[in-house]
């Protein structure tokens, strides 16, 4: 009963909690400071905080380009972000301002938002590689490994099973040895222990 009560709570809509979209946004970019995880997995610092603010502003239902530009200005006027160990900004504030002016618009998809940060910080800022070019390899390899594994085992089992089936059948029944039979039975039982 406790369980059911507990599960019922899951169905509640939690007003103040972050939305699925916000959580998703925090998981698609790495924390730029140290690579210690995605923005969601990393302790909040000023760099991760600024990036989150930009992302939330970009996906806000009421898109305010001026606010977005100000947030970019605030984040990338901080010299610290150009000296980070893991993913420092590689574009100057002027370049970023120009890029934002020309490319940032309302209704950007998650991929487009990530592309903005990848342009500024490099591909290393993406929490997982893009599904294109060499990046495809990382995504398809697990499937290839699994298929090869299943294929190899299937071949092994089929080969052994076939080989056994092909054994000639003796016309006469083998001699019945009760002692041997008892021993076999005992060993089969032991196998299941």
């Amino acid at each position, binding site marked *: 009963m406790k369980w059911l009560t507990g599960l019922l709570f899951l169905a509640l809509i939690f007003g103040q909690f972050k939305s699925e979209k916000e959580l998703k946004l925090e998981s698609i970019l790495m924390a730029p400071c140290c690579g210690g995880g995605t923005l969601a997995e990393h302790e*909040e610092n000023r760099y991760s905080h600024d990036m989150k603010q930009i992302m939330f502003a970009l996906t806000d239902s009421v898109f305010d380009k001026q606010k977005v530009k100000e947030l970019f200005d605030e984040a990338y006027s901080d010299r610290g972000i150009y000296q980070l160990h893991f993913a420092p900004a590689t574009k100057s504030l002027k370049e970023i301002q120009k890029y934002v002016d020309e490319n940032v618009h309302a209704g950007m998809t998650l991929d487009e938002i990530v592309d903005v940060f990848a342009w500024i910080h490099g591909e290393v800022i993406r*929490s997982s590689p893009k599904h294109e070019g060499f990046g495809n390899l990382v*995504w398809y390899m697990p499937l290839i490994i699994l298929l090869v594994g299943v294929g190899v085992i299937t071949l092994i089992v089929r080969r052994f099973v076939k080989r056994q089936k092909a054994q000639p059948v003796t016309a006469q029944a083998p001699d019945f040895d009760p002692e041997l039979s008892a021993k076999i039975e005992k060993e089969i039982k032991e196998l*299941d*222990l």
Partner: protein
Amino acid sequence: MIAILGNTLLLMSFAFTVYGILSATLYTANGNRKFMLSGERAILSSSVFVILSTIGLLIELLRSNFTLEYVARYSSAETPTLYKFSGLWAGMQGSLLFWVMILSVFIIMVIYQNRNRHQKLMPWVLITLGVIQLFFLAMSNFFENPFTPIPAGMVMNGMGLNPLLQNPVMLIHPPLLYLGFIGFSIPFAFGMAAMITGELDTVWIRTTRRWTLVTWLFLSVAIIMGGRWAYVELGWGGYWAWDPVENASLLPWLTGTAYIHSVLIQEKKNMLRIWNMVLIMVTFTLTIFGTYLTRSGVVSSVHAFAATDLGVWFFWFIVLILVTNIILLVIRRKELASVNRLESFVGRESGFLFNNMLFVAMMLTVLWGTMYPILSEAVTGTKITVGSPYFNRVMIPLGLLLLFLTGVGPLLAWRRTTTRSLRRNFTLPFIVGLILTGIFGAVSKMTLIYPLISVLLISFVAAIIFLEFFKGTKARHRMTGAGYLKSFFELLEKNRSRYGGYIVHLGIVMMFLGFTGKVFDKEADLSMNQGDIKTVGHYDIEYTDYWLETPETNPDTRSNHAAKIVTLKISKNGSYYTTLNAERRFYTDQNNQPSSEVSLKATLFEDLYIVLGSLDLHSGNAILKVRVNHLVSWVWLGTFVLILGSLVSLNIGGLIKGKSL
């Protein structure tokens, strides 16, 4: 004085190990028993020297002898005594010494246990272990010496221990991880000895069976403890982030788990002999590879040691292990061929094969994802990241497939399983699974496919395990007439390996329940002033008080840090629930490095998890991260069940009564 002694002992142990290896090798060439005894004693002495040397370093850490560079770098006068122990494995030099110390303890145990046994295998076991010991001793002596002195009076106080390591879990997690890693050296050494001598029957497997299980248990618990540490210390709300160093510990666990399953086939059917050799070789190599990953700087990780020249040496050591093993496998391939054959696709042997394939596929996938950034940079010149979203996406389906096999495997009969038997064994658990999944889906309104499959498989496997216990107990009760409880314990006693394994599986199932709960996790960021009440889900959080504690105000409990603290009164569904203090610490001996102390109220169903991001002492404004995490306790509970099952399998009673590992 102790430092000089420690350093001398470390040097002596290097020399003694070289002699031991040479002497044992001479014995294998000329058969003169004196050489073997001499080699054995030399390696025993070397091992004792290493242990003494480690004790020496520990004493210097406890005494805060800052004339040693290592002590000055990883502790301070203010570091609490308990955490001075952690200093032993906090840095590269100490951790290498700690590694070789554990190996030395294991070597002493192996020599003692086998003093009158396995006369043909032991010289090569000794040589293999000696070579591993020598490698780490060389690192400790010539590259990363923990006894490097600095002039007296130059450093008045040390730099202190990394705040993240100042957590009780960190007193247990690293030693367990080392035990788990290094323990695989023993079955590996016996496997090598078997291949070199041609003693390829099941003796080496049986001799190391308990070693392997104990090692596996240590590694399993260590990995989960690492998760627990991340959960309560890092403050992001989760316990596994697929960090390269976390992955490094998972890799040998995956192949090690495959190995403890597949050796059962070799023990019972004398099959998979090459495969078992490959598995133990790969598992051991992965333990060294994990050490290489954390020390070479090839991957970026918050857990990794700084990049040093050691990486090159580890790389060549791995190459040496692989080349030697491959040559031996090629030479012995005919003798290692299986005597018995598989008879059917649907039999326990095939089930084990699929289980092994899945474990290895998972290992290769994790390895691939971990190493891909290096490969990508080498090929395309672009630095990329493969983070947790990738691993979650590719590993969840594999994990679910493995969970399915966890249930199915034990019910398959040896040789072949008939369709009738399959139907008889699986129908009821499957129906139970479907009913529970239906209830779960309806109540939680869950529409995502993976959580539903996960619940279906969790219920299915749990039902299978409970039915197995029920049927076994009932059969025993009918056979002996004893009570049900007695019959249950007799069942465990008579079939330790099988039923211990089921209990371990039950622990894994409970962990999967914990993993599944993650889809319901919720998070909120709050900015609060004293007196504010904010509602988060069904919790009302009242910010009642805040204050500062410093080493001056609280010298006993806060000797090396100051702490900003807020008190939060929590009500749940309108009634008082608990009071939590959330802390933000600033370590004075680490340039005021901040660290959050998670405040946690955990129940079986959900955890209320609060992290203090910042606190302005003037205005009292606090930034809080509040998470409601679901079913996490099942991960930790599952660990206890896993330990219990492993102890049943190991016949811990027998071990206590004096049976050897």
